[in-house]
């Protein structure tokens, strides 16, 4: 057969177990960064379109939740402590980022079937774009609330707060891993969506977000050592509220779980990649 294919251009082979587009997941995702950005912008534009307050709703809603817990715990139950509201801001905003990302990742693939059926692109982009969508709202809320809280409370800026940047980066990676895994799982078994919705509140109360971890009974405290979300909540509180760096135990828990979640998310995606479109 005349000239064959090995000239200057790249040859791609598609077979039963290949990946669409180029091959390396990191290269693919970087190449499609414009898509991630456009999907995030689309969702931000659409979310509060026509609402009078627009993006301000992204701030009002968490603020209101924070106030609800403040009234319930500090004013009614009187179990608050100095600077309780700062404690709530730190814990609730970071939890919201994770929980909202996890929840929306369960529809990341099922809800975008119209795109996936017609264009081949690295499908990991879909859950990842939802994580960034919630990340932006988290960061904006922190940037707006935290300085105000610093002024109103007796907490002073400290150099430990700079640790927020690596902490947030790791938190994002952890959440991306969970989102990748959940998006695939919820496509193959639709129950996962409802299961996630059901388990998130349980996980919320099993994580020291609206109460300090020291107040929990000893067996629950042991659970905090293996619960990645507890580790993240405690780390945010350590840096921004207690004013010290996270303890080695907390840091290790976060790191190990972040690696586990990234590997699991990647492996699950890789394993079922070629089946995803057929399962829609």
């Amino acid at each position, binding site marked *: 057969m005349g000239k064959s*294919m090995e000239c200057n251009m790249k040859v791609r082979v598609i*077979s039963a*177990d290949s990946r669409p587009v180029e091959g390396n997941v990191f290269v693919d995702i970087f190449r499609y960064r414009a898509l991630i*950005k*456009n999907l995030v912008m689309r969702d931000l534009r*659409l979310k509060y379109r026509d609402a009078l307050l627009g993006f301000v709703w992204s701030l009002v809603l968490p603020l209101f939740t924070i106030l609800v817990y403040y009234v319930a715990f500090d004013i009614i139950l009187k179990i608050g402590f100095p600077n309780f509201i700062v404690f709530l801001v730190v814990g609730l905003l970071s939890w919201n980022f994770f929980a909202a990302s996890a929840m929306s990742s369960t529809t990341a693939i099922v809800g975008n079937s119209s795109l996936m*059926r017609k264009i081949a692109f690295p499908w990991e982009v879909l859950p990842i774009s939802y994580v960034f969508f919630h990340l932006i709202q988290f960061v904006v809320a922190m940037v707006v609330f935290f300085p105000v809280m610093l002024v109103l409370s007796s907490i002073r800026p400290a150099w430990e707060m700079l640790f927020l940047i690596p902490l947030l980066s790791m938190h994002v990676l952890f959440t991306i891993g969970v989102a990748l895994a959940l998006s695939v799982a919820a496509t193959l078994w639709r*129950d996962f969506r409802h299961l996630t919705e059901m388990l998130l509140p349980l996980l919320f109360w099993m994580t020291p977000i609206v109460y300090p971890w020291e107040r929990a009974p000893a067996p629950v405290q042991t659970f905090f050592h293996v619960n990645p979300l507890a580790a993240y909540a405690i780390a945010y509180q350590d840096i921004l509220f207690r004013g010290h760096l996270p303890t080695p135990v907390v840091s290790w828990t976060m790191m190990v779980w972040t690696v586990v979640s990234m590997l699991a998310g990647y492996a699950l995606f890789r394993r079922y990649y070629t089946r995803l479109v057929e399962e829609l």
Partner: protein
Amino acid sequence: MGTIAIDLRGVSKAFVLRHNRADTLKLRVFGFVNQRYREHRQLFEALRDINLTVYEGDTVGLIGPNGSGKSTLLRLIAGILFPTRGEIRLRGSVVSLIELGVGFHPELTGRENVYLNSSLYGLSRRETDRLFEAIWDFSELRDFMDVPVKNYSTGMYCRLAFSVAVHFDADILLLDEVLAVGDERFQRKCLERMQALGASGKTIIFVSHSMDALALLCNRACLLWAGRVMAEGTPADVIARYRELLHAPPEMVPALT
């Protein structure tokens, strides 16, 4: 014989058809109790042992009745679906235009949709910036650039979508029935654009039921019937064979499913 752009070797694609699909636990339980709700699976072979070689610069028309596997074949080449058996070799970049305006959102403006749509094909912001003027010139919709596309007429919507699509600079273009766009004048413009793309050395695979468009645009054609390649050659020969099969008495024709 030039360079091979697309090479399919023994490609088969089977789908699992799931009747009474039991996605949820509830349906599984019902299925266990009552036979009527039980999920049963059936293997459907959409494509069987396809061997097809397309050379660089060819425009190949894919024809065949509904359900003969044309779209499945296109999706396999696009990398949306994956073959059950066999291998597809592609030389160069591929753009699949299986539907126009994929990802277009009615609430976004024309400009926003152009950027979203092209990023779905892997274009960076800067690459889209470079194509932007040409896209709007081609679409003749410049005045509506910042209007949400929900306010576009159907024809305008399609014109914009087609304009974006034909400006992607890929080596291999996969087109599925996307020619019927806009009024007659714009349709002619689209056909001319496609001819120009073919003449510029791009490899095009083109699925259509319009024999006129096929005869005009393609230098080769391939007839799919019940998931197999029934004929391959010049468009005139393949179209003749297709008409023969369509009008033949049913018992003379291989069953479609």
